[in-house]
């Protein structure tokens, strides 16, 4: 019988700790598929963040480094400079990449560091139990914004792709989602391009995946997807913010 669907070799055959309905699993699978399709698992080094994806080092089949909170782009820079022929990617959440690690993110991007970043934006700190993230929406209720995010005291959400698109070191800045089959297919293509860019030495690529956190949003997985479409996507429009190679200036 023909095999039409199986676990990609890029993912280890282990159960994950992710909550039911969480979209991390889908994005892990897409990265695993890309490692397979490009035939790069053996020369890839992944960098796991601090946050929900902290255990990613146990899930991907390639060599893995676990980084301090927010420092994944710096750790990836060190790994890439050590062995430029390796493919190096980070997998980070919103708090990791856009709060504690903002400097590392911006400067890896502006250096045109030849790495690939997968950024999961679910508008909340998942691992610590649902606190406000830099990407939490205005009025969003979290454990640390119990009356809703008040922009007058807690500030406004960061749109990372829009911010990074202005940097000449960036090759690809694209925002995708995995809430529908069409969007999953689009996300796969973006992740594939992000890794291909690195192989082609085009510079820094970031793929932001707008994601759900049913547990900390306090919703069923299906309801969470609806909430994502109704609230997240208007604030974080999907699309390509920069697509080229390092040195290109945004017109």
């Amino acid at each position, binding site marked *: 019988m023909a095999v039409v669907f199986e676990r990609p070799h890029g993912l280890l055959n282990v159960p994950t700790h992710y909550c039911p309905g969480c979209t991390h699993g889908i994005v892990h699978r897409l990265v695993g598929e890309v490692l397979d399709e490009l035939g790069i698992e053996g020369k890839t080094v992944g960098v796991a963040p601090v946050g929900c994806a902290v255990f990613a080092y146990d899930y991907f089949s*390639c060599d*893995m*480094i*676990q980084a301090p909170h927010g420092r994944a782009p710096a750790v990836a820079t*060190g790994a890439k400079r050590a062995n430029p022929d390796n493919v190096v990617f980070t997998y980070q959440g919103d708090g990791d990449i856009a709060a504690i690690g903002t400097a590392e993110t911006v400067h890896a991007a502006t250096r045109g560091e030849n790495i690939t970043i997968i950024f999961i934006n679910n508008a909340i700190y998942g691992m610590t139990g649902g606190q406000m993230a830099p990407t939490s929406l205005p009025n969003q209720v979290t454990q640390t914004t119990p009356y809703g995010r008040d922009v007058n005291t807690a500030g406004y959400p960061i749109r990372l792709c829009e911010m990074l698109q202005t940097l000449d070191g960036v090759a690809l800045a694209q925002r995708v989602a995995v809430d529908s089959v069409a969007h999953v297919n689009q996300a796969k293509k973006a992740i594939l391009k992000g890794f291909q860019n690195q192989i082609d030495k085009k510079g820094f690529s970031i793929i932001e995946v707008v994601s759900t956190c049913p547990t900390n949003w306090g919703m069923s997985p299906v309801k969470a997807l609806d909430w994502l479409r109704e609230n997240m996507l208007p604030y974080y429009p999907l699309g390509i913010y920069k697509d080229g190679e390092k040195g290109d200036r945004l017109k």
Partner: protein
Amino acid sequence: MAERFLMKGNEALAEAAIRAGCKHFFGYPITPQTELAAYMSKKMPKIGGTYLQAESEIAAANMVLGAASCGIRAMTSSSSPGISLKTEAISYMAGSDLPCLIINVQRGGPGLGGIQPSQADYWQATKALGHGDFQVIALAPSSVQEMVDLVAKAFELADTYRMPAMILADGMLGQMMEPVEFDDNAEVKKTEKPWATAGHGGKREHNVINSLYMMPQDLENLVNERFARYEVIKQNHQMAEEYLTDDAEIVVVAYGASSRVSHSAVDMARAQGIKAGLIRPITLWPFPTDVLQKAAKTAKAFLTVEMSKGQMVDDVKLAIDCAVPVEFFGRTGGIIPTPDEVLAQIKALAQGGAD
């Protein structure tokens, strides 16, 4: 064949690191270590190496973490306030059993402190270079030549025992010029690193560099394993220089820049008929307890001299279990004690002993 140069301490550290096979330097500007980074930025592009000026000390140290994970010799350098920022990555590297070299060209503190020489980071280097139960190898040169020699030693010990190593220098050693020799035939000792994350090439299971253990028993076992390694280092790698200690009644203990001053003071004391000697710790961790215990058998008193308010003096007392009085003299804030000041302390102790 040995090549001889007149070099600044900071430059000598950089050249020695390159000769020790370090081709990856990640740094951030800070006085008084800047010549080290400048030297690297000049040399590295010409030998196919990496000089990377990071966005912060935090990032630079984490770049070292990433590069060291891949099995190569990597380093960073800074001065006191910058070292505080690197402690995050240093703790993670210790917890991930990663070898690397960190250089601290100390200046006065706390806070922004000053930019003049200091030894006020002894506690930080030997007791708490970050959170958690761990040690780093801490080496203290007292001349530009010794800076050269200890860089290779630091990389070797770090690789052998899979842990970060620090060279604890100071602004005086970093800035001063002395003749140095580099051994052209020196062989770089290579260590196999089968744990490195440089791509498995389909030939092995994936490697993971990690410091996270969710089960307390797993974590305790690992920390215990690391501390067993530390015991081996303590037994085999204590280094200290002894000067006129055989018959010394007053034993001065000093490292780095303050040991140079103390050396002069001991000579002056001897000229005045006082039986003074000097023990100069070269390894601050592991602390050279053996030579101190030996000297305590004949000495009447110890005098610890530091460019701080008294930090190493604790370890001297512990090493000899306060068998004889241990006095302290120090200047801080970037002030280097003079030989006359140290001599006055030695004389006071010698007179006290004559009562």
